[in-house]
């Protein structure tokens, strides 16, 4: 018994010793599977800076964690999240003089420039993403479909996703990526400030679309759309589409004319970060060779113009998928903006829609539910009453 205690104390010492001085460490908070680990290791060897990678799978989680006091040196959130972090003063402005391998004035890919300009020049709500972020990847959202099984004539706007009787369909399990198609399909003017009527129309659209046969997925898509593809159509990000199309040549990517969401993810530096380390890593990743390797591995569109043009030109890695790689902001495309109220509404409603999935809309509560409610209600009431009676008797 005593020996066991001694052993544990010894182990404690050993552990604390081991994990002590490690040299400078960069805490990188990024999406899962969104960077080439070989590059991370190369950076560690080249710079002597250790990289600790932590993953998140949604912007909301990332923001919650940053707010919750977790200190990171670099985070890679999406446009609207960058906006929120900036407004809430959780990140610092980017000092572009410290970015040596990339120039925001000359080196940006065209598609991305126009997206950034769109946000910056917005009449009512201007925001300069480049003030707070260094672009990392960008893209849009569309429908990845099986060219063998899907009749191209059926691809007609986001309503295509309602063809669950004919095709195996998969929605993306995130409030934003569910509401965006819904809002676009039901004709909302803007996805950032829908009116109550437009919002409700979108909710109805989603409820009708999410039948019991429809799947709701996130990362399963990587496995599911390989040959043979489990779904005929799946809502997908352009980068994932690029990757999947390169692995399965029976896939195509369709962006509905009603418009879609174009987005950008970028490096931001949280307040309190070891900024030297942050800039060192950014410079490393934005370097020509590394950016090229990263985009080839991950599949998303790179912000560097020279790499980008090379990728879609003849002989380039993404030559065949130029359409999905060269994301342009079309007339009806929009960038998501920071809107706290809308976000909360969408988040809550999305869970409700999921809970309603598979149930007949007009059914209301249904017999099973009512029986359960009545039964449990009776149990609670009578147990409370009996409890009180018992107490009175005991007195």
């Amino acid at each position, binding site marked *: 018994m005593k020996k066991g205690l001694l052993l544990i104390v010894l182990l404690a010492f050993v552990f604390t010793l081991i994990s002590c001085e490690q040299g400078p460490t960069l805490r990188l908070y990024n999406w899962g599977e969104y960077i080439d680990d070989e590059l991370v290791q190369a950076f560690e060897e080249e710079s002597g800076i250790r990289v600790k990678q932590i993953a998140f799978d949604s912007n909301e989680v990332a923001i919650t964690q940053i707010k919750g006091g977790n200190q990171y040196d670099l985070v890679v959130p999406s446009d609207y999240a960058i906006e929120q972090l900036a407004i809430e003063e959780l990140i610092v402005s980017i000092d572009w003089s410290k970015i040596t391998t990339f120039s925001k004035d000359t080196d940006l890919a065209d598609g991305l420039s126009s997206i950034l300009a769109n946000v910056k020049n917005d009449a009512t709500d201007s925001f300069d993403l480049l003030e707070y972020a260094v672009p990392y990847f960008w893209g849009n959202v569309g429908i990845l479909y099986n060219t063998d099984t899907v009749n191209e004539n059926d691809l007609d706007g986001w309503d295509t996703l309602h063809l669950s009787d004919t095709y195996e369909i998969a929605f993306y399990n995130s409030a934003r990526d569910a509401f965006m198609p819904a809002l676009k399909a039901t004709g909302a003017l803007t996805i950032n400030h829908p009116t109550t009527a437009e919002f409700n129309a979108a909710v109805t659209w989603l409820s009708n679309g999410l039948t019991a046969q429809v799947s709701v997925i996130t990362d399963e898509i990587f496995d599911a759309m390989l040959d043979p593809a489990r779904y005929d159509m799946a809502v997908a990000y352009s980068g994932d589409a690029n990757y999947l199309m390169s692995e399965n040549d029976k896939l195509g990517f369709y962006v509905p004319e009603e418009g879609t969401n174009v987005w950008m993810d970028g490096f931001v530096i949280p307040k309190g970060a070891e900024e030297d380390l942050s800039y060192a890593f950014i410079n490393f990743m934005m370097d020509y060779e590394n950016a090229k390797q990263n985009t080839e591995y991950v599949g998303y569109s790179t912000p560097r113009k020279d790499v980008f043009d090379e990728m879609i030109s003849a002989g380039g890695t993404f030559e065949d998928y130029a359409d999905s790689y060269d994301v342009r902001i079309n007339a009806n495309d929009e960038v998501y903006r920071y809107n706290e109220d809308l976000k909360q509404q969408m988040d809550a409603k999305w*869970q409700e829609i999921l*809970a309603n999935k598979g149930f007949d809309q007009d059914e209301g509560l249904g017999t099973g539910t009512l029986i359960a409610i009545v039964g449990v209600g009776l149990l609670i009431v009578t147990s409370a009453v009996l409890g009180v009676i018992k107490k009175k008797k005991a007195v």
Partner: protein
Amino acid sequence: MQEVIHQQKKKRKLEFYLGVPYYAVLIILVVIPIFLMIVSSFQYDNQSGIFPIGFTLNHYLDFLKATAFVRAMTSSLWIALATTLVTLIIGYPLAYLMTKMKTRTQITMLLLINAPMWINMLLRVRALEQIMRMFAPFLIDSFAGVVIGLVYVYLPFMVLPIYAVLSKIDYNLLESAADLGASKTKTLIKVIIPLSLSGVLSGILMVFLPAATTIIIPQYLAPSQNIYMIGTLIEKSIINNGRISYASAVAIVLSVVILGIVYYIKKLDKYKGVNSNEKEVY
């Protein structure tokens, strides 16, 4: 005499100090959190800090008004009920058979049933999911699939308490029943089942509660969100949406419902301690 009193005082002091860490843990990590959770459920979301700022019934109202979520709660209860029934149907005969075996075999069976409980639940569910996808893909995303998954995980929790109680039944009772002319069936109904009741109720509680509040099983076996359980709502509200106060409100409604059910099940336990081999612990 002085010595003895001095010793007594030292003893009292020691015992007091011995208990302090425990009470610290109990109060700070058990009592206060529950209290805070209740307080939090009446606050607006995104409030931080210990002291309540606002008061709102919004979370409760939002939850109760949403038929989808109320339905999620009741369907969770139905799933738990189905699970409990199936585990009872399989578990009771299983426990009964075990008591009939040779002692060595009983121990073996006990270990075999017990062993999976020590294996990480996620591993077991994943294993089951793989098998289901291979041999019975129609079970995925269905009510039956979820119930099967829950039965798979919680069967030992039903078997063990029933076995514990059945194995303590004094065989003399059974013999006297037979002597008095009772048939096998009558003995079963009038003697064995009542005596094992406390074990059965124990098993019911140990299966029903976790089954109703699970988050793992529907996420693995019904990934297309067709079976939306109350645990899923709480999980998503916290992890995805960061709405802790809302989740607290849902958790409290869930607790009230469960308390009502548990209270009733405990009241059914009329035969507690009747069995001569049982010892009251407290």
